[in-house]
């Protein structure tokens, strides 16, 4: 993008993940293409079952290769992670690409000291002495805002609050100065005031370490706070992908409209929420054509038949997959903002 090719970290092209099960093949992720650069936060939003977490597990190489059919390319530092031997992947996973999971209560071993668990992460990839690794653990705990890190490193996870555990998980992810930090719903299990702290911490970490961040969440509010670019997923496919400002100011896909309109806001009481009717489709047999068409209020003839390509109607960086002609989208878009303005009055 604008920052130049050398800042490019990750190039995902046509990523497709299939899980063969007794009931049939689950089409978890289909034809997902995106990039990530240094200093960029990419927000991936979608509801449960939209494939947002599975995409990241694929990037991390955490899907069982025997039981999953993965096609496409995940290019990182000139190598395709999908064809890389397991031993080489081991050097990248946790070292150059690190991950923070949703539930900080389940991710720390309850019977080891927090410092020891971070120390172990250091020793997994670096041949340093145990005391050096411990010092690094204490240093990182301090940097992610654990007060009195020297003593608190000797605590067990149950002595930490939820927010502190999530900080410890971020510290653990940072031990090898990764290039990419993947955060899967990092704030979902946390209270709102603690969530604000963790969001700021992720921002600070991104700036300080100059890394790329992939933030997976169902919360559009969190994404609009820190993401530079946003990818909206539905039924395993990208519906809309573009710079965060453009996407929130002028969403182009009816699914994105639906998501934004069904969300209550803390800023005002809306006269009514506009839900998306129906429920998400089964990934065993996703709908033909555009996967969103059964729930889409704007569907017309081509939608159930042909799948719309992911293209940019105007700005080259702002893509969406929808058959609606551009002038229709503009019209619906302005009707939406009028409806919202009416609420404000």
């Amino acid at each position, binding site marked *: 993008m604008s920052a130049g090719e050398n800042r490019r970290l990750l190039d995902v092209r046509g990523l497709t993940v299939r899980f063969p099960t007794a009931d049939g093949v689950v089409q978890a992720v289909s034809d997902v293409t995106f990039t990530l650069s240094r200093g960029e936060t990419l927000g991936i939003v979608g509801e449960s079952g939209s494939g947002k977490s599975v995409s990241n597990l694929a990037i991390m190489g955490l899907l069982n290769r025997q039981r999953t059919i993965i096609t496409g390319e995940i290019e990182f530092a000139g190598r395709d992670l999908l064809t890389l031997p397991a031993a080489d992947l081991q050097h990248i996973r946790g070292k150059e690409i690190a991950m923070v999971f949703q539930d900080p209560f389940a991710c720390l071993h309850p019977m080891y000291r927090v410092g020891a668990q971070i120390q172990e992460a250091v020793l997994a990839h670096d041949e340093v002495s145990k005391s050096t690794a411990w010092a690094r653990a204490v240093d990182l705990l301090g940097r992610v805002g654990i007060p009195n890190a020297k003593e608190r490193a000797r605590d067990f996870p149950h002595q930490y609050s939820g927010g502190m555990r999530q900080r410890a998980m971020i510290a653990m992810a940072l031990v090898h100065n990764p290039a990419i930090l993947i955060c899967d719903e990092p704030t979902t299990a946390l209270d*709102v005031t603690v969530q604000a702290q963790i969001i700021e911490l992720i921002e600070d970490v991104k700036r300080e370490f100059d890394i790329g961040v992939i933030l997976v969440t169902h919360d559009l*509010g969190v994404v609009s706070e820190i993401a530079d670019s946003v990818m909206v997923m539905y039924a395993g496919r990208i519906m809309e992908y573009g710079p965060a400002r453009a996407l929130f100011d002028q969403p182009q896909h009816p699914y994105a409209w639906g*998501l934004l309109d*069904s969300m*209550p806001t*803390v800023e005002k009481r809306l006269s009514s929420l506009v839900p998306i009717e129906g429920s*998400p489709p089964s990934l065993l047999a996703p709908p033909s054509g555009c996967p969103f068409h059964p729930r889409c209020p704007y569907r017309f003839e081509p939608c159930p038949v042909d799948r719309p390509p992911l293209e940019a109607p105007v700005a080259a960086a702002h893509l969406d997959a929808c058959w609606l002609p551009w002038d229709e989208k503009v019209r619906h878009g302005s009707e939406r903002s009028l409806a919202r303005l009416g609420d404000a009055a």
Partner: protein
Amino acid sequence: MSSPENLVELGHLTKRFQVKQGVFARGKVEVHAVEDVSLTVHRGETLGIVGESGCGKSTTARLILRLLDPTSGTITFDGRDISKLSQRELRPLRREMQMIFQDPYSSLNPRKTVGQIVGQPFAIHGQKNARTRVQELLETVGLSPEHYNRYPHEFSGGQRQRIGVARALALSPKLIVCDEPVSALDVSIQAQVLNLLRNLQRDFNLTYVFISHDLSVIRQIADRIAVMYLGKVVELGESESIYEHPKHPYTAALLSAVPRATTGHRERIVLTGDVPSPISPPAACVFHPRCPRFHQGHCDVDTPVLRDLGVGQQAACHYPLEKWPMTDDEIRQAEGTIRADKPKLEGASAETG
């Protein structure tokens, strides 16, 4: 004191749980779950109770329904003091108060059909042949009467929550306590359930106590709200005035912490640290260790009580906010004194830096 337009009145309600501590469980300590809560729920309104985990909002709800016994204080339901009634005496009242639970996956018995689940209240209260009534209820909540013989696992999360709503509606209750009813649902489904609850309230003249940690959801559904922190109500009043002009610094911090999907920068008060333990809550104002307006010798000595601040709005604070929004420095500067005793909050300095 009891007024006919109040369906529920809580008077100085307190609940403490005894917990054992130590290896051989010799030490006993008390968790101050709910401390001296007084509030009312008007007929036909939605009272939202909002706060972070551990603030006592669910305990308050369970006390209203007498699913827990209060340590002290009174609970008046429909003009009658129910705080000391026995379980047997409560039984006829149970049909007038119902609950909708957070998790639609664990609150429905997987071995029973939808018809049995929604018909259970009729069976308990001795009404036979409720099948037509159950099917009507299923239609009311947006399901189909044909779903009668299906099992919960055949439904999605949103549909299951509708089953829970139908069950709560079965006996035409006066009060429904909703404990985080939409927290487990996706946004698009969440809006469906919120709209459903609102329509049902209008059609059946229901009174809701709506508990949520999500301030946007509360704003959408509640007429009045109670903000709780560490077992105490810190701010109480009309929803609109609290959202537009929060008086308590905690309410303000909570509001400013909510991520929003709109453009533009805004002031944010970032609270440092975590909620203290309810086993030994801070002296006087429970919020003082995290409060940006803390005055030594006042806030940690004198317990603030809820007092009227503006129309239909009460806050328990010695130094309520003069206006909103405020910058971080304005917050710190209450009544001409700048807090120099405590360094700037880490989070705030990190944001400006």
